[in-house]
């Protein structure tokens, strides 16, 4: 009797889950395919400089992230090869992206979201950098020019999102497309090497149902249209930084 009841519950639950998964698989992939057809990340000619005609950004639908963003973080790790610093303590290890769990103390309602560099229009990390290493590219990507980074870590202090980390140890066998080294600060660079090649960032590819990537300057781009329809919240919108990474469902 008892066993039957459990089975019934389980069956109902799995049916519902399957239905949700099916919907999630059909609808957003349609949106993303449209985005591809619209040339969201058109390959730039390699010999031309980026311009401010485009501003890259993404909308992350937290309600559709079944794993709270862990898959996106794993994809980032794999793409850039961070997180395996053998001689660093856990608090020192690189974190280009991390999963943050938020719980409402009153209702105990809880959810997780991936937090990485928010690619602000007015980035505090660029303001404080004494050498100009912390920089915003013309197309809105905020990154560290490690050639001139002196490792002072002011930008880590300035960032309200705790998006930056410091490499404490000598590294070997870095990814050819993602140089990382001791004594420099690093953070999410929106997979700048992939964008320049006309590809989506690794985390977006890892969660195609939950993330829409595109040009925020173009009102007709999929990401702009999605934000117009369902809205897109900034974390710490009160700071007025106009972030390029927006969230739905937080």
């Amino acid at each position, binding site marked *: 009797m008892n066993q039957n009841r459990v089975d019934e519950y389980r069956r109902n639950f799995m049916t519902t889950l399957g239905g949700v998964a099916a919907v999630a698989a059909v609808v957003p992939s349609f949106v993303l395919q449209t985005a591809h057809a619209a040339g969201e990340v058109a390959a730039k000619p390699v*010999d031309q400089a980026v311009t401010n005609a485009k501003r890259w950004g993404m909308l992350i639908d937290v309600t559709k992230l079944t794993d709270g963003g862990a898959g996106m973080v794993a994809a980032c790790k794999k793409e850039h090869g961070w997180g395996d610093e053998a001689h660093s303590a856990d608090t020192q290890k690189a974190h280009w992206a991390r999963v943050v769990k938020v719980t409402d103390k009153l209702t105990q309602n809880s959810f997780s979201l991936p937090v990485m560099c928010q690619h602000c229009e007015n980035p505090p990390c660029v303001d404080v950098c004494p050498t100009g290493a912390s920089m915003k590219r013309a197309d809105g990507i905020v990154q560290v*020019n490690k050639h001139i980074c002196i490792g002072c870590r002011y930008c880590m202090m300035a960032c309200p999102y705790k998006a930056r980390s410091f490499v404490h140890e000598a590294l070997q*066998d870095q990814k050819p497309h993602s140089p990382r080294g001791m004594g420099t600060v690093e953070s999410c660079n929106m997979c700048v*090497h992939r964008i320049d090649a006309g590809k989506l960032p690794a985390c977006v590819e890892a969660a195609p149902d939950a993330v829409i990537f595109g040009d925020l300057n173009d009102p007709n781009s999929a990401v702009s249209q999605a934000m117009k329809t369902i809205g897109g919240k900034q974390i710490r919108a009160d700071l007025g930084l106009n972030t390029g990474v927006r969230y739905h469902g937080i």
Partner: protein
Amino acid sequence: MTSKFSSVFLAATLAFATLLAGCSKAPTEADLNLATAKAKADQCVEPESVIRTKHMDLLMHQRDATMIEGIRTKQHSLKECINCHVSTTKQDGTPLHYGDKEHFCTTCHAAVGQKIDCFQCHADRPQTDDPNYQHTVGSTAGHHFTQGVTAAAAPTAAEVQMVTQPQQGAAK
């Protein structure tokens, strides 16, 4: 006065002799099997003389263009230098790093006593599963210095150490 002069002269002669001895230790062309290297030099992105004297300037210019403006042309890209000139493994199959005497960059940098900073961050060898990653000379032709160079006077451990280790304190 005369004795002082003679001692200075003696010291200078000694120094010159040491210098000559040092020169004789450096690999001559006869020591090196440079056929592959020369074949590749013809296909390099710039003439050999330009590469020898200006490669650091070309790389410096390219790094800023890539980093700041997103220009990713391949001609002066460090990644492409590595893809063409450096093998993924040593002859015994272990990974090749710039601290090894076979590394294309280290062979010269050790001889001229110049530290390399690039590879503290950048990958120092190609990382690909594709055996045909190389440029037109082709993977079967081998790489500079990694294959076929057996008679050359290899850089000493101290020289390699000098190339790879960050120097403490003020720059010399």
